[in-house]
């Protein structure tokens, strides 16, 4: 059996998602996009085009480019009179009043065309995953009748899929938000896509969704918002320059692109510039479009479209016989729900903050993938794993916390780090186990402490002490310290490290954020002091090694800097002073390194002259 996927077969765009590692992920198509236009075209040669490539030639081939097929699937010919008038391709009645699309001398049922879209989605998904895709859950609007559902299922079969289930789009969206876990709650799904608007009210209980009512507007979507903006820009330009940009194909294209871009930008800013230099040419020279658009103006231009959303919401509530107060959750679906005015309307009508953390263009496909995963048995092995709520680490030189395991790490897990001693001949190390997000040890929670003794005498920095943190699935933390030289080891076990009160976790994280800058500054200071201390130690050793080869005045100068720096460190002098002295010592140490190099070089030259016994002169002939 191959992979099972979830497919959102949309009116204008479709998407496919799959469960990977227990989580749903949208799959990109062969063109690198996460959505595929639901468009099929037939070339003169009979070759079929599907997706973006079909959409690209739609203006050249209107009678053989089939789009919005979802408006016809599973419906009778006499039911689709309005839809027929809105499309440039030929629609006629087939056997038993079924809908047929006439393309040249061939006739196609809507399910055959949808099957081509499904086939492309599945083929691209299989290529991406590197394995066959055999099963699918496909979504349909909640208002689809049996015939429409069956036709969609048939489309899946024609595409070679084993259709595990047909589920409602609002149900899929609710699954993506995990609302199937809720009990006896009422959900309103507000779906404003590219060309259609659907409102659904669902009730959920024991993982079962029941559709209480549906309503909507089959010809309201993002395209309407784009047109409103294009028309305004064209009218303003005409007023100003006397030229109607809509009459110029090239100018119109640029206008449409700019309008779409501005609409998207106004979802995150309150003002945007729309600038199209050299958009057209007048008798007196080039013309430019350069204007600003505020969000308030955009809302004003699209006010009537926003108001068109109000009626269906009220009607859906009335049909479900509930008031807006009884709605427990609101979900936003479709790219156009990113428009702030749309979100404001929903908030105002229902009085609740809508769920929008999941990408509204992908939420239906993701939910369908979850359902597919459950039906295909891929969710059985999913185990809910815990995480460490706060970072864990140890106290190190200078009183700072060195993190070993970062917060939100999934457990069970094991991490280790190797530390060393701070003083020469240090016989033991203290392991102070900490939990928290602050930089300084004293600001974090102490979980426990122990000592590792019996470290063999050695210069500081030489012994290797491996500190390991091991958390099991139950959150039991074992911290061990092992001297890699002697093999000596000590450990402690701490329970309850993951059982913190949520408010306590939030408090500690929030405090860390609040004190973030000052903590960072203090840590930086401590690190600099530690570095200065290491430098002192290193330079003292170097002086010892160089002995009398170091010029007296140089040695005297360096020793003076050393004394000053050691005193400054001991007295905890201001960091500026330590920084300056460290810098002086670094410079002096550089001179030391040069002297050390010279010493080595001289030694080797002397060595060469003295070891002639090992050198054999090679015989050679001059050519």
């Amino acid at each position, binding site marked *: 059996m191959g992979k099972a996927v979830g497919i959102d077969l949309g009116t204008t765009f479709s998407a496919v998602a799959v469960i990977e590692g227990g989580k749903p992920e949208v799959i990109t198509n062969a063109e690198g996009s996460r959505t595929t236009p639901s468009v099929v075209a037939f070339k003169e040669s009979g070759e079929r085009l599907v997706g973006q490539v079909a959409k*690209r*030639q739609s203006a*050249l081939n209107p009678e053989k480019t089939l789009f919005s097929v979802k408006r016809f699937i599973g419906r009778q010919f006499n039911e689709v009179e309005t839809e027929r008038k809105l499309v440039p391709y030929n629609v006629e009645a087939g056997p038993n009043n079924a809908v047929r699309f006439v393309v040249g001398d061939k006739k196609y049922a809507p399910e055959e065309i949808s099957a081509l879209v499904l086939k492309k989605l599945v083929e691209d998904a299989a290529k991406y995953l590197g394995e066959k895709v055999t099963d699918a859950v496909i979504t349909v609007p909640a208002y689809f009748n049996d015939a429409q559902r069956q036709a969609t299922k048939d489309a899946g079969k024609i595409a070679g899929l084993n259709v595990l289930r047909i589920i409602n789009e609002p149900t899929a969206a609710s699954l993506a938000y995990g609302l199937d876990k809720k009990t006896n709650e009422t959900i309103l799904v507000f779906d404003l896509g590219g060309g259609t608007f659907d409102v659904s009210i669902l009730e959920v209980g024991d993982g079962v969704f029941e559709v209480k009512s549906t309503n909507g507007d089959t010809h309201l979507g993002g395209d309407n918002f784009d047109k409103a903006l294009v028309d305004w820009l064209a009218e303003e330009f005409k007023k100003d320059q006397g030229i109607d940009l809509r009459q110029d194909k090239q100018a119109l*294209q640029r206008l449409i692109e700019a309008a779409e871009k501005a609409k998207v930008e106004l979802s995150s800013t309150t003002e945007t510039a729309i600038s199209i230099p050299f958009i057209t040419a007048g008798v007196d020279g*080039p013309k430019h479009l350069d204007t600003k658009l505020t969000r308030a103006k955009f809302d004003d231009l699209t006010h009537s479209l926003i108001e068109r959303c109000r009626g269906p919401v009220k009607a859906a509530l009335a049909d479900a016989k509930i008031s807006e107060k009884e709605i427990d959750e609101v979900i936003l679906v479709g790219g156009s729900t990113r428009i702030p005015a749309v979100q404001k309307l929903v908030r105002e009508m229902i009085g609740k903050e809508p769920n929008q953390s999941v990408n509204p263009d992908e939420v239906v496909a993701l939910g369908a993938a979850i359902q597919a995963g459950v039906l295909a048995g891929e969710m059985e092995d999913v185990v809910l794993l815990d995480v460490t709520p706060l970072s864990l680490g140890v106290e190190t030189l200078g009183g700072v916390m060195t993190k070993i395991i970062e917060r939100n790490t999934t457990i069970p897990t094991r991490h280790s780090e190797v530390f060393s001693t701070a003083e020469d001949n240090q016989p033991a190390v203290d392991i102070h186990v900490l939990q928290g997000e602050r930089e300084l040890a004293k600001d974090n929670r102490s979980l426990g402490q122990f000592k590792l003794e019996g470290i063999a005498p050695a210069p500081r920095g030489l012994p290797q002490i491996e500190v390991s943190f091991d958390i099991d699935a139950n959150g039991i933390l074992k911290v061990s310290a092992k001297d890699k030289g002697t093999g000596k080891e000590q450990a402690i076990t701490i329970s309850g490290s993951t059982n913190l009160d949520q408010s306590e976790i939030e408090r500690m994280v929030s405090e860390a954020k609040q004190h973030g800058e000052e903590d960072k500054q203090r840590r930086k200071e401590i690190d600099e002091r530690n570095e200065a201390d290491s430098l002192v130690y290193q330079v003292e050793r170097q002086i010892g090694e160089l002995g009398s080869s170091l010029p007296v005045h140089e040695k005297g100068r360096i020793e003076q800097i050393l004394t000053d720096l050691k005193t400054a460190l001991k007295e905890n002098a201001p960091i500026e002073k330590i920084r300056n002295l460290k810098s002086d010592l670094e410079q002096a140490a550089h001179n030391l390194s040069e002297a050390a190099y010279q010493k080595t070089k001289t030694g080797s030259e002397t060595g060469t002259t003295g070891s002639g016994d090992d050198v054999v002169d090679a015989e050679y002939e001059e050519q």
Partner: protein
Amino acid sequence: MEENQNSTDNKQETESVQLLNLRAEIDDLQKQLSEETNRHLRTRADFENYRKRIEREDEARRLSVKKEILTDLISFLDYFDQARKQLQDESAAKGLEIIARQFSELLQKHGVRPIKCLGLPYDPEAQEGVGFLVTDQCEEGCVAEEICCGYMLNDILLKPARVLVARRKEEND
């Protein structure tokens, strides 16, 4: 004697029952162990597959970011082109041409190249057909006019060209 015998029998019976229970427990534990081992292996395999996919996707992600930035930048080539065509001041137009050429060369360094399509058969894989142009300057079905240049990023379509396709004059025209 009889009592002792009964006691021995009872003890043996208890031991047999205990043995049976222990065997059942062993079977159960072995089954659990087998299931857990399977689950562990499956998780390890999932993790390995996930890691491989992340490695593959890392390159795709970098390419995606590059595509996004370059797509935004190439719109300026259109502006330069429009400016060049419309400016009446020759010197200014020449200056813009130089800027456009340098910008184009910079983009080429990053793998961006224009799609050559004028006079060639219309190809929806790389061109968006916005309409027809009645002309006999080129064969029917070929690109008669390029409204907007298209670009490739190496062998990936960055932006399709916008074109008018040649069509013969019909009786109705």
